[in-house]
């Protein structure tokens, strides 16, 4: 089982609140990713990181921001949550030795914004 953790697992919050979704991995992977997954829909990449102090936006436009101050930690922040942000958020990581094909996923955070 992958050593990648996400907290909280479930979050219900009101509109306008600031939230941070936590993601940590203990595998020493350089590359980390955030995906958004809605029921019956494909995973959409919203942010990724090559390593410390490196972050990029993914294909799906997102109002969230990320930071990568430590290798093992890749938090995602929403400054002002809206109902349109309701979704499942998945964090993943890879190491270069596997050509980046095997992404190790956390269990996800299911976010509901009322």
């Amino acid at each position, binding site marked *: 089982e*992958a050593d*990648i953790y996400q907290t909280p697992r479930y979050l219900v919050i009101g509109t306008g609140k600031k939230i941070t979704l936590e993601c940590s991995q203990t595998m020493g992977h350089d*590359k980390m*990713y955030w995906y958004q997954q809605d029921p*019956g*829909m*494909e*995973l959409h*990449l919203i942010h*990724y*990181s*090559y390593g410390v102090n490196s972050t*990029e936006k*993914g*294909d799906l436009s997102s109002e969230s921001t990320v930071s990568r101050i430590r290798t093992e930690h890749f938090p995602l922040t929403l400054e002002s949550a809206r109902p349109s942000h309701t979704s499942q958020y*998945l964090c*993943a990581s*890879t190491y*270069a030795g596997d*050509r*980046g*094909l*095997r*992404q*190790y*996923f*956390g*269990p*996800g955070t299911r976010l509901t914004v009322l």
Partner: protein
Amino acid sequence: QKEVEQDPGPLSVPEGAIVSLNCTYSNSAFQYFMWYRQYSRKGPELLMYTYSSGNKEDGRFTAQVDKSSKYISLFIRDSQPSDSATYLCAMTGSGSSGSARQLTFGSGTQLTVLP
């Protein structure tokens, strides 16, 4: 049009059946083809991947890629109730192994194997 199309199912089969899951794609630059399995309330986990066209077998699972038709398949032999999950195909180009490789996922097929 989506780059990767996958029948969402749901697919329900009896235990012991052979299951066929499929994806089609439009981007001819895709070179690596993966199948991920996602159990309920869990993140996806990689089952297997193949490079370019051909077959790859791993136990009860066989992945097939036909690049000429832009069509990939996952076969599950002697299916078990523990195989009940959502199966997602994923693809990417050859790119650089050092880059943060971006995968394009299908929407997943929900499979239930009935005991």
